[in-house]
């Protein structure tokens, strides 16, 4: 279980996060949802260990890891732009960490990740030859080989288009389920957050607006921000799609 207690962070006197308290259970998929500039990426960096908190504690499995450096925490991240290494091919990217920690994943496990993410036909390819979705899957595989205790994903779907988005969503869900892996996702898209995760944390102006299961958020939005900015967006989308399908049905009826 990951727990954040009274986390505070500010840059140059500007408060980014104030008084963040949060508990994430093992194997949960949690989305951090909010508009740009709300502090969600900072929160992700705090958990990863890239950024130090000004105040508060981070507890993982009962141990205080607030002052444990990034490399020692055993968490891992897939960045929004994937940060794949262009001088190495797909296979070498995936197995990059094995050069440093040869025993972290066995040959079979690596094969499994490659199989699961459908990367077999692409192993010899250069990074630039890949599509956005393929890059995302390579980055996921590379991270999974490191057997992270928590998987962090920074806007994993925002660079992808329609159909691919849905298939990557499925892969993320499958990985979290199969490996019982705590997964924390940062996103600005309510639809993504609410359809992908077990729990959603809505962040606004440096604080947590609401933290709960998607159904809870839909059923009982806790404040105006959640209502106006999160639910309203989904409402508009829903109506657009409904009217689209109604027209289609009307056409069929005629």
């Amino acid at each position, binding site marked *: 279980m990951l727990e954040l207690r009274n986390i505070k962070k500010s*840059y140059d006197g500007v408060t980014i996060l104030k008084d963040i308290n949060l508990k994430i259970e093992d194997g949960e998929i949690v989305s951090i949802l909010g508009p740009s500039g709300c502090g969600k990426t900072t929160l992700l960096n705090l958990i990863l*260990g*890239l*950024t*130090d908190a000004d105040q508060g504690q981070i507890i993982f499995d009962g141990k205080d890891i607030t002052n444990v*450096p*990034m*490399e020692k925490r055993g*968490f*891992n*991240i897939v*960045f929004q*732009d994937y*940060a794949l*290494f*262009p*001088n190495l091919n797909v296979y070498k990217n995936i197995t*990059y*960490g094995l*050069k*440093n*920690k040869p025993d972290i994943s066995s040959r079979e496990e690596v094969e499994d990740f490659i199989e699961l993410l459908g990367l077999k036909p692409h192993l010899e390819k*250069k990074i*630039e030859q890949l599509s956005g979705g393929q890059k995302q899957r390579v980055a996921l595989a*590379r*991270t999974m080989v*490191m057997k992270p205790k928590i998987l962090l994903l920074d806007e994993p779907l925002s660079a992808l288009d329609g159909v691919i988005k849905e298939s990557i969503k499925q892969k993320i869900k499958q990985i979290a389920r199969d490996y019982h892996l705590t997964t924390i996702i940062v996103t600005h898209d309510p639809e993504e957050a609410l359809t992908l995760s077990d729990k959603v944390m809505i962040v606004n102006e440096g604080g947590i607006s609401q933290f709960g299961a998607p159904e809870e958020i839909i059923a009982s939005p806790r404040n105006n921000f959640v209502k106006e900015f999160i639910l309203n967006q989904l409402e508009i989308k829903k109506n657009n799609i409904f009217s689209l399908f109604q027209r289609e049905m009307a056409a069929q009826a005629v």
Partner: protein
Amino acid sequence: MVKRKEREIKDIYVIVLALFAAFLAIPVVRLLVESFVEEAGIGLAYYSEVLTERGFTKALANSVTVSLASALLATVLAFILAYSIQYTNLNRKYKSVIRTLAVLPMLLPTITYGFAIIYSFGKQGLLTRLFGVQLFDIYGFNGLLFGYVIYTLPISFMLIHNTMGFIDKKFMVVSRVMGDSNIATFLQTVMRPLLGTLAASMVQCFFLCFTDYGIPASVGGEYDVVATVLYNEMLGSIPNFNRGAVVAVMMLIPSVISILLLHYLERYNVRYNKISTIEFRKNYLRDGVFGTLSGLILLVMLSIFAVIFVVPLVQEWPYQTAFTLEHVKSVLEDNSLFGVHENSIFVAAATAVAGLLVTYGAALASARSSLNGKLKSVIDSIALVTNTIPGMVIGIAFMLIFTGTPLQNTFWLIILCNVVHFFSTPYLMMKNSLSKLNSSWETTASLMGDNWIKTIVRIVTPNMTSTILEVFSYYFVNAMVTVSAVIFIAGARTMVITTKIKELQYYTKFNEIFVLSLLILFTNLIVKGVLSLVIRKTERKK
């Protein structure tokens, strides 16, 4: 913000700073001190002495006049060359010939151009004999102008050509469909975005002419410029280091002003979000005019370079013009001459390696570390300062401070001097490329268990190959051709080709001068050729 310890990068930062403190700050301060210290204490006596002298004020005025004229001419000619490439429908092969020839003068030392001009336009010159009449008097203003223009044309061309490449050509279409006249389109879509660069080119060329020593050393004649005055004060028949230091400071002032001006001009650069190319309108007149003009410019330039090939390959210019390899052979056999070629190659290669390490380290610290912004800006300031200080000034400062130390008369001194002197451009190249690399690589790699050094070796360096080779080539070529700084610090055992050429001038051994110049040219051509081949290969592989 970032939590990684970055021990290594801090060490590198300290080393870089220490290097520039010892080989830039201290020598230059020492030079300044020299200009103020009198027998009775500190004062401005040397300044008033030098500045009130007719000789110096005349030389200063000469320097400014001829540098301004050269800068203007070089910029106009460079514009024509760049325009021919970027805005006409000339044949692609012809364009690439222009591109190649325009930068050729960079591969030779300036002192060689001077002698080449003498042998082209002098009384017995190649071109004078071809035309049957001497076209103009070469010693003094004309010769300097000619030499400076050849010297600065490549730099101006590269600046303008580069900016033109980053101008969004689609705006020409927009301007035309909005009903602009041809002139208005030209002014609005070509000249306007180029203004900053044209001004920058003027300033840069002025700075280079003002501080060059090679050209006045050969064709200056009675027309004294600041560089010749400075040389005579330091190494002339009656050396006076104090007065020399004053002249050096006087050379420094316009340099500082021009670099500050360059910095200021940067804000006039127009940035386009996207660069698109268009098909240029068919216009045979435009293509013809620019094709011809470019051809003429390059022909004149090449005709001057022709003598470098012709003179040493005939028996005795201009009286016995039968072909011979005798002069080449005798240079190759004479160890006192061919030996300096080996020295030059050693110095250039060592400069390139050392320069590479220093610029890479400095750029890593400023582009890929979480060091404090103020600390990073110190490195940027160092780059700015090295860009400001003329080679002659560094050379003199080194001479003043390292004479009597174990470093005196060593190759290390020359190498360090070159590394410091040419730091600015390659540092910026490195920093630019490094900051374009994905900023999450180090974090990602460290999550995969890499330490910092490992990441640099496994990820960053492989993705920097072409820039690293370009930096190597920049340092190598510049170290091969530079004369202004090394002339003050090269000793008898540490002669390089350019200083040897200066020495040979006393004995009027021009055959040897040209053979040595050819050695520089071919060495540079080979190094540049091989490196650009490798660069192209790595780029294609990506």
